[in-house]
């Protein structure tokens, strides 16, 4: 037997002998948050001997000490629903105005009533393993260190802290710059009716690093909200900051964005996830081409997608005795921005309890359980409900009077002759994406549409051609960039793209050499900001108003930098020119304040600095192969 620990960020492995566990458990849940609370309760209800370990002093995580009190999309069904009803009843009985306080009470009492033990203010600091199987944990408790044996360890820490300690392979951040989504500080403010929570996005945090995490916790609480967000007197900063993304495990079965788009989803789902690819960063230009085609190229970033989440996504590859039912499950970086919502995590916790129960009952490895047995349990509780396998949808739209509009399914086109109708409107997204799905077979039709007298048709046909990889529309794309086409499309309820940015994106994607001078002008011309597209000093395109942040210029500039990098990657002779432009742009002392007046550690400030960082990293990369 050996113990694995993390020291100064690195995993160490030490042989141990004669270890005597003070207690043995069927299931130990590390982190009694959104997933862990349900996992502990359901596991104990099935008669398993369960210990819940929580670093803070209450259960619920994001839904209690994270201040998230409502569900952002997701599919109904599952064991969480009865807890919601009990919490509401308890709220009435105790007259409380704060839902989170009731959830703290209900979660911990349900876990205890089910027969589980809880250790608050405790955390795991070592994993005992035999060969590739987790068999025990070392825990820091208020009474000192303790060693417990376990059959199934559940890592519900959200960031795979425990799985990482156990040696599971993990990945982190996006390809371009290694960053995750911005974090949020949720505060509770006193309003006329009670306590209202306000979310405020900050910069990036690396929650694997104690210094970075501490700085984020302190900075976000020292930053006084601007008047527009300050809707009442502060009552509390939530103990948890809202971290949306972290480590992701390499699982027995992975979910990839391209599989969702090609409808090549798992046959063994534990539930269906349902939301948009919800990005809190504004720097979608840096999110790579898979997501870029969807969110920038087709302007479909706020369309909802349905993800069949395989049960094997919470089973780490090559290690047994551990499940990772939390947002660190096996999805790629793009999908992780969707499969992370509160309802997803609750369902993940429930499914983990079922998986552990089946494996323990049948004395088999977690990856070897019978899916049919699991499926029957999940269908019975409605955690898995095939009626929610609804594909891609438009949802969450409101009319001008604030009335929510009915959601509807999206069907993509397979007949090239039908593309023109959609391309002629300011909602060309479905037609553009249909062109991507059709590929070469729609190219001739689209080339014909480039000659259309309808401006929308002509320009959007250029996008549709570009998304298939065809460069016949580059002249039209260049024209949109040169004229800084300010037209904002209207496919989505949020994050709609301006045509100028879409054109820059595609010209970068097509590695178009002829646009380079214009891109450099965007970054370096001192008169750039006097163009009509940037109509006021801190203008924002519709629905994207953030005080002291010039979002339009940020979008145009960040897309221009990425496009320049893509073009120079493809054409080495242009690298010096691009590098020179970056120097000119970013050594300008006004560069930062041209885009924002917010502090460097704010969400906006960190993104502005990151443009420069990404540009210089590309230059260093080019220099290293000279």
């Amino acid at each position: 037997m050996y113990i694995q620990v993390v020291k100064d960020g690195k995993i160490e492995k030490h042989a141990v002998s004669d270890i005597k566990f003070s207690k043995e458990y069927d299931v130990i849940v590390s982190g009694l948050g959104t997933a862990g609370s349900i996992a502990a309760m359901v596991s104990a209800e099935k008669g398993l001997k369960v210990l819940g370990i929580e670093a803070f002093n209450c259960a619920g995580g994001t839904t209690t000490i994270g201040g998230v009190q409502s569900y952002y999309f997701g599919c109904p069904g599952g064991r969480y629903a009865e807890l919601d009803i009990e919490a509401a009843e308890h709220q009435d009985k105790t007259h409380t105005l704060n839902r989170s306080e009731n959830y703290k009470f209900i979660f911990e009492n349900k876990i205890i009533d089910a027969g589980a033990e809880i250790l608050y203010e405790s955390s795991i600091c070592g994993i005992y393993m035999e060969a590739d199987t987790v068999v025990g944990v070392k825990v820091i408790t208020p009474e000192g260190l303790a060693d417990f044996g376990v059959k199934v360890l559940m890592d519900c820490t959200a960031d795979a802290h425990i799985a990482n300690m156990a040696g599971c392979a993990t990945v982190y951040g996006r390809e371009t710059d290694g960053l995750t989504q911005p974090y949020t500080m949720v505060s509770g403010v006193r309003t006329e009716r009670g306590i209202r929570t306000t979310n405020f996005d900050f910069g990036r945090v690396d929650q694997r690093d104690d210094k970075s995490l501490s700085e984020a916790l302190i900075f976000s609480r020292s930053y006084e909200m601007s008047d527009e967000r300050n809707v009442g007197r502060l009552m509390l900063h939530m103990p948890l900051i809202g971290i949306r993304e972290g480590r992701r495990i390499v699982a027995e079965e992975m979910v990839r964005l391209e599989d969702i788009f090609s409808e090549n989803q798992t046959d063994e789902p534990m539930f269906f996830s349902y939301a948009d690819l919800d990005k809190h960063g504004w720097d979608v230009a840096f999110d790579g081409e898979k997501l870029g085609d969807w969110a920038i190229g087709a302007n479909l970033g706020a369309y909802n997608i349905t993800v069949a989440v395989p049960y094997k996504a919470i089973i780490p590859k090559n290690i047994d005795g551990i499940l990772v039912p939390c947002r660190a499950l096996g999805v790629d970086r793009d999908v992780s921005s969707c499969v992370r919502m509160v309802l997803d995590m609750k369902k993940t916790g429930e499914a983990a309890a079922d998986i552990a129960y089946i494996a323990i009952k049948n004395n088999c490895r977690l990856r070897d359980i019978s899916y049919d047995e699991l499926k029957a349990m999940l269908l019975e509780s409605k955690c898995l409900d095939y009626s929610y396998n609804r594909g891609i949808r438009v949802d969450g739209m409101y009319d001008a009077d604030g009335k929510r509009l009915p959601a509807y399914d999206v069907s993509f086109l397979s007949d090239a002759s039908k593309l023109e109708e959609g391309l002629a409107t300011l909602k060309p997204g479905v037609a553009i994406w249909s062109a991507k799905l059709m590929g070469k077979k729609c190219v001739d039709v689209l080339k014909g549409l480039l000659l259309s007298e309808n401006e929308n048709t002509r320009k959007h046909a250029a996008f549709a051609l570009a998304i298939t990889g065809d460069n016949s529309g580059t002249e039209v794309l260049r024209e949109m960039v040169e004229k800084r086409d300010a037209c904002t499309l209207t496919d989505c309820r949020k994050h709609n793209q301006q045509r100028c940015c879409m054109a820059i994106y595609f010209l970068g994607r097509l590695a178009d050499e002829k646009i380079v001078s214009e891109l450099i002008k965007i970054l370096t011309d001192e008169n750039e900001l006097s163009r009509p597209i940037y109509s006021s000093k801190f203008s924002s395109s519709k629905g994207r108003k953030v005080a002291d942040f010039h979002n339009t210029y940020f979008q145009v500039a960040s897309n221009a930098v990425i496009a320049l990098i893509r073009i120079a990657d493809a054409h080495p002779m242009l690298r010096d020119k691009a590098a020179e432009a970056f120097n000119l742009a970013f050594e300008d002392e006004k560069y930062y304040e041209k885009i924002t007046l917010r502090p460097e550690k704010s969400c906006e400030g960190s993104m502005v600095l990151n443009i420069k960082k990404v540009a210089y990293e590309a230059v260093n990369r080019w220099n290293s192969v000279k």
Partner: protein
Amino acid sequence: MEYEVIILGATFAAAGLIEKYKEKALILERRPQAGYEFFNAINFGCEYDAELKSDESKMLFERFKAKNIFTGERICLFDCAYDFYKCLADKNVLLNMEIISIQKEQNGFLVTAHGVSGYRTYKAKRVIDTRVHKDMILSKTLNAVLKTSGLKNFVLPENIKMEKWGYGDDIVVKCMLLPDDDYISARRKLFGTFENMHEDLKPLLVADAFDYKLKDGCVAEKDGIYYMPSCAYKNPLLAFDAGVVYASEGR
């Protein structure tokens, strides 16, 4: 890593200490919060007319006053959290760090902690502990803020005591606990009393840290470690002041 001083607990006293020690000190805190012994315990303190000895604490008091912490005889500190956290910004502070052990060595101490980066070991000439330890506790309460909606004549259950803290129509109440009560039993007691209170007294917020009353003599040196539990002081500014003064004396 080596520091002159390691301060345990990200409390008001700790903030006062690091205000003077600056980069020579490191604060280690197990919670994800700072100043919790006052803010998160919903313990707004008393004796705000007591003399503050250091300029730093007088300045902090001015910043607090600018947040309108006093309304008549009532005190509300919540809005001061921003100013308190500003005191810790850009200092050596690590939150979410469990203290595993403090070992005395020939020239100081070896402190082992565990956080998101795993085990960390720090050397320091001195250790100052601003946390509460079990043997210091005289009594404890779990506090809550209630919305009274203007209701004047109400009777609170026996185990609930009202404080002179709050803002507008909101009041702060304390639920008396036994020394062995943990957060689970404390919440059960508090929520049990909520059920029996007048329905117009609506709980808004429950503390996530205990409000402790400590025995006399807790501020003392023992085995080379200086103990100055922050909540031993009458209010957060006095705790901060004590930290500044202690560090200013060159100890």
